[in-house]
């Protein structure tokens, strides 16, 4: 991370515009109060990593980036709704956070168009979220996301606990991808305080993230199979996922590898334990996972439902700064693992890119990533690691920005540590980045396509709402 200078928010916004015009991707806008100053930290992903621009909010409204940059829409509206910052020129006047007035949703004036509220309680075993759907029958005319029903105040909760136990809070942001969150948060604190992590622990963390990618991608594919009424295929895919959880329970004591990672490393000799358990179990887990994936992609009735469904244009993906399999399904490179801040970076040729931009392309990205994840796990387990000694907190205060490639895509944590306590934690999850794009896939599709498109995105509500 480049050490960032403070400037006026106006100058920062202009700086962001220039960086985006030069090929950067908008990542996040984090609000922060510090020494009586109100700041917005703009984060942009460039070729060499993340760049920050810090703007001091002055009297009068802050110019909105989202006036011409859709990727900033949710970030700015959340700051507006949650912290009361006044912006000028946000095109979307409706509230992002509840309470939202249902009457404000409607955009169509045609009498044959009706507005349907779908959620927050839906059928099946799903997380709570709501969509406002304008329809004249079976088709989507316009859809508006109404989320954040599950806001639990996690960013604030971080600041109420001591640093040593804060990793457990990160695991509550998204329990389904607990390893990604625990590791990303730990990385941010380690950057902030100048802590070096031993290579063995870095390798163990990498193994946890890749195993997490495998079980979450299998989860998304199993749900797609279920949507396609492929009952046996879905059951077999869920069974393959179950084997990953059993391996994790054996190695880490938790089926979602919670309680395994700490700031500065991992608990116990995690790499040795993973090596031991994987030596006995990984072959079988891999055989089952790859064979169900082959099976799914050999079932024409399922593929017919995915091909051409929920199609996105590359322009839309770029404008919204989409990440993860959603971006890669449109041929947009976005894999954090390609940058140098991971133990084993993947090469450009190794990124799972597809071009078609439909549900089928996103499913293919997941399938390829499952296969590659097993290779990365084996590489990390077999690596001949230097016995570098870790170093412990060099300082008690600092700021850190870190990102990891979670199963849903790029996950970003910002932390400010003051005298060994967390003063501010801000999270930009992959799901938060990708949801705004979701509603754009719906017009032109019909109701029964909804779950296919939803599961081809494979996002998590808990990390969106925080």
């Amino acid at each position: 991370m480049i050490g960032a200078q403070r400037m006026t928010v106006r100058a920062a916004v202009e700086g962001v515009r220039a960086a985006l015009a030069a090929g950067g991707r908008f990542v996040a806008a984090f609000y922060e109060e510090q020494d009586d100053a109100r700041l917005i930290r703009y984060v942009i992903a460039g070729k060499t990593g993340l760049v920050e621009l810090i703007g001091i909010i002055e009297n009068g409204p802050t110019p909105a980036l989202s006036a011409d940059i859709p990727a900033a829409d949710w970030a700015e509206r959340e700051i507006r709704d949650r912290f009361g910052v006044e912006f000028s020129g946000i095109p979307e006047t409706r509230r992002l956070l509840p309470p939202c007035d249902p009457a404000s949703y409607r955009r169509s004036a045609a009498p044959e168009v009706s507005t349907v509220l779908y959620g927050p309680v839906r059928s099946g075993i799903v997380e709570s979220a709501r969509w406002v759907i304008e329809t004249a029958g079976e088709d989507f005319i316009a859809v508006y996301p109404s989320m954040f029903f599950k806001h639990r105040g996690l960013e604030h909760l971080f600041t109420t606990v001591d640093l040593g136990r804060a990793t457990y809070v990160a695991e509550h942001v998204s329990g389904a991808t607990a390893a990604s969150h625990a590791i990303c948060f730990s990385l941010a604190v380690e950057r902030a305080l100048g802590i070096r992590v031993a290579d063995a622990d870095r390798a163990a963390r990498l193994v946890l993230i890749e195993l997490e990618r495998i079980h979450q991608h299998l989860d998304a594919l199993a749900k797609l199979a279920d949507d396609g009424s492929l009952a046996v295929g879905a059951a077999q895919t869920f069974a393959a996922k179950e084997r990953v959880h059993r391996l994790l329970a054996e190695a880490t004591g938790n089926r979602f590898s919670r309680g395994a990672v700490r700031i500065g490393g991992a608990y116990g000799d995690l790499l040795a334990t993973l090596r031991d358990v994987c030596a006995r179990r990984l072959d079988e887990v891999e055989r089952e996972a790859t064979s169900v994936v082959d099976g799914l992609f050999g079932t024409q009735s399922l593929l017919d439902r995915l091909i051409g469904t929920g199609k996105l244009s590359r322009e839309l993906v770029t404008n919204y700064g989409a990440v993860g399999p959603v971006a890669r399904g449109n041929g947009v490179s976005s894999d954090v693992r390609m940058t140098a801040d991971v133990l084993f970076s993947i090469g450009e040729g190794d990124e799972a890119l597809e071009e078609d931009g439909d549900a089928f392309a996103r499913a293919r990205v997941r399938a390829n990533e499952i296969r590659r994840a097993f290779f990365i796990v084996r590489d990390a387990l077999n690596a001949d690691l230097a016995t570098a000694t870790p170093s412990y907190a060099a300082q008690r205060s600092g700021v850190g920005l870190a990102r990891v490639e979670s199963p849903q895509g790029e996950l970003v944590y910002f932390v400010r540590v003051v005298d060994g306590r967390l003063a501010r934690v801000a999270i930009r999850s992959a799901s938060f980045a990708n949801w705004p794009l979701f509603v754009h896939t719906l017009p032109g599709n019909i109701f029964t396509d909804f779950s296919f498109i939803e599961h081809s995105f494979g996002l998590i509500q808990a990390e969106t709402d925080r």
Partner: protein
Amino acid sequence: MSNWLGRGLRRGVLTTRYPFDEAEMPERYRGRVRLVEGAPTHAVLRAASVCLSNAIEVQNESGHARMSRCFQCGACEREAPEAVHVSNDFEVAISDGEADAARHRLRERMRSLGRSFMIRHVDAGSDASCEQEIQALFNPFYDINRLGFFLTAAPRHADVLLVTGVVTHAMAAPLRETYAAMPDPRVVVAVGTAACSGSIFLTGRDVVGPVHEVLPVDVRIPGAPPSPLSIINGLWIAVGRATAHLAGPRR
């Protein structure tokens, strides 16, 4: 074309016999937390001091592990192994006793009609892992259809309401509406530590609290997330087929 049937047959029977036979979680799995008998108070206090959700209480020199608050991080055992043992026992469901009557009526109705149990799920503010573990109940390893549990999309058909997550301000009303739409007798099962006790969110300003502050809860299944076997154990208790090892009070 994939031959799913042939593939399924080649795998053989994967399904556990639990709860009719015993089942076991891996040695390292963190399930039920127990205090070591006769452990020195200072060691119990040390274990209690590292618990983020205050699951270990010490009063008058005697300690008590409150499973409903435990999110199974294992910090207590790492801090004071001489005072705390985190076992791989997954039968952690808590029955609060007050709702025995509803449970009894439900059981009688099922017996007389020979019917199965219909489950409805509501996410009140979960971390997404509890949903995936409930989903896992339907995979071939657990297959709770064999126990007579089926998922229903309509609250009107539901006998059992599974609630995940700490109840947020925005979800309290939708949760109450779902419960009100269910016919009597009905049982409510809180799934996951956040739903059971509020976990680390209890002091938070953004949540209402655990499920029992909004609805009458019959059975609580702590865990972060509770394993599918733990949920089967809790469901078995909820329909009066087993008794819980642990009982209230609701704190």
